[in-house]
């Protein structure tokens, strides 16, 4: 194996800015998609538990269809396919205002929203019904029971699985490179193409992702320990795909 290492390509003039831009784009696309995904997750997670069948059916259809198709297919669909059915004016506006980014955010949010809703639903359903009943029995009103007992417990229970799912979202944002979003994986590929130094470029990308994921996992682990419910092993841990 003959390979001529040149690590300096990583901090030479344009490359370091590519990496930095890529890193920031990854953060931005993940953060925006995360907000939408959590919103969709809460909305559809809740809708799947309402006592009204048509609404439940709509929510189930959304979740089962979107999470069971590869994200890559959704990216292509939202980037190449979906804009075709938009009115010409909106399409032109999108093309001039970063359609790649918008399509990537749409694809990642909708896909991960479906997955997130499963995680949130599992968390809510793992709260023992007795918690709710004993709240009422001790004389709390319905809203107090929710506010003081059910929601605090639910939030604490879903921290680990939601963290896990958020890290999946962060890692999956790398797929946005396939439709031309200049995120971190895109940047490492770009450096590799320009310098032919694949080993160095991939190492840089790998280390940045690793640092991000391990860093977030470490912080969330601390949070989880701080807010863990004594005597309860994380029940909602069952990771959904």
């Amino acid at each position, binding site marked *: 194996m003959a390979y001529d290492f040149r690590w300096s390509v990583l901090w030479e003039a344009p490359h370091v800015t590519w990496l930095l831009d890529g890193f920031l784009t990854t953060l931005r696309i993940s953060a925006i998609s995360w907000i939408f995904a959590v919103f969709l997750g809460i909305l559809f997670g809740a809708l799947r538990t309402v006592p009204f069948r048509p609404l439940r059916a709509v929510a189930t259809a959304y979740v089962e269809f979107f999470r*069971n198709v590869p994200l890559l297919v959704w990216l292509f669909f939202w980037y190449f396919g979906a804009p075709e059915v938009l009115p010409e004016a909106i399409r032109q506006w999108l093309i001039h205002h970063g359609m790649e980014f918008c399509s990537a955010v749409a694809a990642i949010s909708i896909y991960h929203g479906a997955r997130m809703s499963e995680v949130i639903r599992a968390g809510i359903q793992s709260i023992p019904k007795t918690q709710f009943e004993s709240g009422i029995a001790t004389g709390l009103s319905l809203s107090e029971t929710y506010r003081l007992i059910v929601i605090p417990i639910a939030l604490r229970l879903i921290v680990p699985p939601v963290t896990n799912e958020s890290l999946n979202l962060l890692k999956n944002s790398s797929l946005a490179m396939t439709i031309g979003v200049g995120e971190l994986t895109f940047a490492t590929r770009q450096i590799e193409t320009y310098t032919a130094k694949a080993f160095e470029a991939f190492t840089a990308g790998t280390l940045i*992702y690793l640092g991000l994921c391990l860093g977030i996992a470490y912080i969330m682990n601390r949070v989880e320990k701080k807010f863990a419910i004594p005597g309860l092993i994380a029940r909602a841990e069952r990771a959904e795909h």
Partner: protein
Amino acid sequence: MNFDWAVITSNAKFLLLQGLLGIGRFGGGTLRLAVPAIVLGFTVGIILGLARLARRPWIHYPATIYIELIRGIPLVMVIFWFWFLVPIILGKPVPEYWVALAAFVMFEAAYIGEIIRAGIQSVPKGQIDAATATGLNYLQTTWDVILPQAIRNVIPSLVTQFIVLFKDTSLASIIGMMDLTKAAQTVSQRELRPFEMYLFIAVVYWIFTYSMSCFARWLEIRMSPERIAAS
């Protein structure tokens, strides 16, 4: 915008035979990649899961570091690593199919290893003592006593992971392997019908993953402790 759904029927043979099954001059194929990847990933995953629980530090630490490393980076990155490294290590060009297969097996094995570890840890410790007391050695204990129970405990998670792997195979198209996604890409570039094309393969992927998840749910009910206690 008018839809032209006939584009699906006129290209169905290429999409399904070449893209899904891998029968044709491009090789590849989603199922031809997914099935061996699941089988091999499962095998390597069992070894990794056992290695993570090994008492010898020179087995335990490399396995742990490997699993944490792989789980901390995106699959695309792993595929690019394999794409770049495999030909260098072997000293000759390697077809995309084999690069993709190697990358998927090694990537999914890290996730399956964690599931297997959880399964092993869910087996009561008394089982090991009992097996040892009856005179079984390490291999016999692991193979005949621990693993069957461990795997049974985590079957739903395993099926879920296999579904993830099935969806992940679409990423092989990034390095140019002709799978269902790549086939749809090729057709939609020729016919300029991306909307119909991608929606169609979304449905094809969905049929497979959804049946797998129904199967997982059925298994979960069948394997639930209440059910087993009742039988």
